[in-house]
């Protein structure tokens, strides 16, 4: 499996962190989009809308 | 045990497991509503109220949605005094209906639920202007006027209020019977001609067809010359999209849901011919 490691450990860590940040941002945008097309807000301040 | 038997035992055994699960669950049968023959002569108000309670839970299917919070998909009814609530609703500035007392309000809520939508319970996205409730005098529930009266009687009686609806008189019962007997023949049919359609939707109540005189709405004598058929169709299904100069938005906006497609086409076709 040596050919799998073409990036150093540091680079892999950076890639992981970036991947998580990007994916989180994408999902946040997706959630916003999905709620907005249904005419609902996405409350991130955790105050339940009644 | 040979392979075939092993596979069969496995397959049939698995099938029986599923059968067992189905048989372990509570066994409920969904009875079809039975048309009850009510003996008017011997009916007391207590019977009438009991009949209303039964209708509420069974034939009326009200309890599917009207349940105590937080279960309900519609406002709670059993847990509150509906007479007091109705009086409050009638005083609400948002109330647009024509009822003057609690019984009238309750009846109106049953046959025309969109008339007053309780805040928070409207159709999703309609901002409480549309009610998700079906009109219960129409299919599939189809309660008769007498049955709705029975429900009102129960709603009044259950919280100790005075029952204001009267027991069905023999004449009323006879009328109900007539209506249901005639139902097969005279139930709303789709109009077959343009004239029938124009009458059915009472177009001539506001529009003059043979002059350009303005009644409530513009005259339609040469409407086919002023507008294309597409514009006519738009003016019927969405009357407020383009308003004729000098007219207020007074035309009903629900023709799109009331008319059948063929009725709409009949009307549009007839108006489009009016070119002069």
């Amino acid at each position, binding site marked *: 499996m040596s*050919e799998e490691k*073409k990036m150093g450990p540091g680079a892999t860590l950076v890639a992981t962190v970036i*991947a998580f940040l990007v994916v989180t941002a994408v999902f946040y945008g997706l959630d916003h989009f999905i709620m907005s097309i249904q005419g609902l807000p996405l409350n991130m301040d955790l105050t*339940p809308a009644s | 045990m040979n392979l075939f038997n092993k596979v069969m035992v496995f397959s049939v055994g698995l099938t029986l497991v599923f059968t067992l*699960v189905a048989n372990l669950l509570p066994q409920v*049968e969904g009875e079809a509503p039975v048309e009850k023959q009510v003996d008017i002569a011997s009916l007391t108000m207590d019977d009438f109220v009991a009949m209303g309670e039964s209708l509420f839970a069974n034939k009326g299917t009200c309890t599917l949605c009207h349940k105590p919070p937080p279960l309900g998909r519609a406002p709670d009814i059993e847990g509150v005094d509906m007479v007091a609530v109705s009086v409050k609703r009638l005083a609400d500035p948002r109330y647009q209906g024509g009822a003057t007392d609690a019984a009238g309000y309750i009846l109106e809520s049953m046959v025309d639920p969109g008339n007053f939508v309780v805040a928070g319970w409207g159709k999703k996205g309609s901002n409480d202007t549309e009610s998700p409730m079906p009109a219960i005098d129409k299919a599939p529930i189809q309660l008769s006027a007498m049955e709705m009266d029975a429900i009102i009687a129960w709603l009044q009686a259950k919280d100790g209020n005075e029952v204001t609806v009267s027991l069905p008189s023999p004449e009323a019962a006879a009328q109900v019977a007539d209506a249901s007997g005639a139902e097969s023949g005279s*139930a*709303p049919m789709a109009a077959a001609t343009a004239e029938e359609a124009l009458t059915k939707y009472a177009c001539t109540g506001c529009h003059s067809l043979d002059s350009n005189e303005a009644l409530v709405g513009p005259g339609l004598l040469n409407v086919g010359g002023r507008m294309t*058929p597409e514009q006519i169709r738009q003016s019927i299904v969405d009357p407020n999209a383009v308003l004729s100069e000098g007219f207020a938005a007074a035309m009903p906006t629900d023709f799109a849901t009331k008319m059948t497609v063929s009725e709409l086409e009949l009307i*549009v076709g007839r108006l489009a011919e009016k070119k002069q």
Partner: protein
Amino acid sequence: MIDKNPGLSFWNRYKVSIWIFFLLMLTAGVIGASQGFSAEGSGVSERIAPIGRVHIAGQPFVEFEGASGESQEPELVAAPRPTRKDYPDIGVSSRALVWILAQMHLFFGALVLAVPLFVLVIELTGVITGDDRYDDMAHEFMKISLVGFSITAIIGGSLALALFALYPDLMAYLMHVFGAQWLVYAGLFFLESFFLYTYYYGWNAFRYGNKKWLHLTLGLMLNASGLTIMVLANSWATFMMAPSGVNEVGAVVGNIWEVMKGPLWNPINLHRFIANIAFGGAVVGAYAAFKFLSTRDPKLRAHYDWMGYTSNFIAILAFLPLPFAGYWLMAEIYAYSQQMGITAMGGILAWLFIVQAVLIGTILLAGNFYLWSGMSRTEGSVRYQWLIKYIAVVLVISFLIWVTPHTLILSAREMAAMGGSHHHILGPLGIMPAKNVAVNLMLVVTFLSFQIYRRSDKVATVSWAPAGNALMVAIYAVAIVNIIFAGVYYGYFTNTVYKVGSSVMQVASTLVVIIAGIVIDSLMFRNARTLPSHWGKISDRSQYALFALPIAFTWLMGLMGYVRSSVKTHWHVYTVMKDNSPENYIPTIGYAGNMITLVTLLFLVCVLFMFWVANLSSTRQSRPEELEGSVG
């Protein structure tokens, strides 16, 4: 799984694209023709367009052709109102008889619709890869389902007979509403038979070169006629659930297209189409598993292992999007009639979804177990084996949450016994948001099983593989967090509108995982180094998963048929024609379960017969005297 891939020659590539072009033209032609058929010379597109959309400003308006409405209007005849004595009494339950025949017809119809569909795809794969094993397997799939076409037709005929004899008024009304449509149906049936026999018996005659493309076209036409038959038949079922093209009393006011195109037609079409593929894959998988177990020959075992794997692959892949199609169907049912939706999901039928959960749980556990067992075929799987126990834990916990009973209509006595309308511990787990979390997590981890299985015989060679892996891990992690967050936060702390709204978020998260997984892996494992796999090297026990799948699928189909038909309650045609037969009530879940078991076992017997006949064709008895000679 493709050890020898000779690649695609330029000429082959050229032919593939020509064929696909031809296919597109054909599709366009069929769509055009069907519109021409339904138009009947009137401005059909404006008549079928939802009224509210006709007038959108700025859009080009459809040419208006004047309304000479009277001439098109047939005389208005209301739906019949049969009384109880109008239903013939034959001594046994009419409903049970029709139930059995209809369900058997659906089982076989689903099977013979699905098999040609994936046979065609496998055959095309064989042409593209140049690997004859695909072609042989496709041929074998056709062979074992061939008798199914006749069985479908025989049962279908019996069903029609039973319906006309036992429900004359309903059938007369439906014939009146659908008019000449049955002629089209019968015509299509002849077309399908023609293409079926030329496709199957021409297999070896049109095997290579240009003739192969002729053969593929025959297969395509077989599928086209079969699918058209399905959507026509679906329109009858959806008309009975949500009638369109008729007025309040059932008189026909629209043309045949308006009658067919009811609000539930397309959701049912999609749902049945996908489910048929999953069902067909599961049934032929059982055949492969039985053949695998009944031989010790390593070559045959390798062949049938591969066949079983492919069948399972088809079944699970088609199964994954099925909940979303079901979600659409249920949403359309709610939009059509809230009352009908509640009858299905919250009324007396609600317990049924516990049984459904048991069945889907069985399917997912069996499918996952088979994938994990299959990882023993390749040495590369050790890299992923540690994940299996976590997947198993998530599956089991989610399954338990799913079968927790939720909001039901309780009697006062039951409520008192439980101390409220909800159990204090089970209550919070029993409501829909918790179940949505569980279902979505089960789908996500099943896809994970699938993905690690696909990866287990490959080593990525692209330079960005670690980054790609990091991205995939991040997508899984964030999607799972998002599914749980949406379920818990919106499900428990806000009102109903948000619960429904946030369930879309969960579904979208699951879809993102599936789509991203397929895209990333197909890019990352391009030109990957493949590790050796050993077909046939799989435990005998794993094959029982391939028997569990079709049994659970068959039972599940029967169960969903029960709910689909029951939501009409006491109506033949909802709101239009009342059911006044002695059996116009919804039977209990136990009774339905017994009926479903009966039809499942009947189906099992018929399928065994079908497989037996298929094997007869390749069996040849020796001449008696030769046998005597060899013995003597």
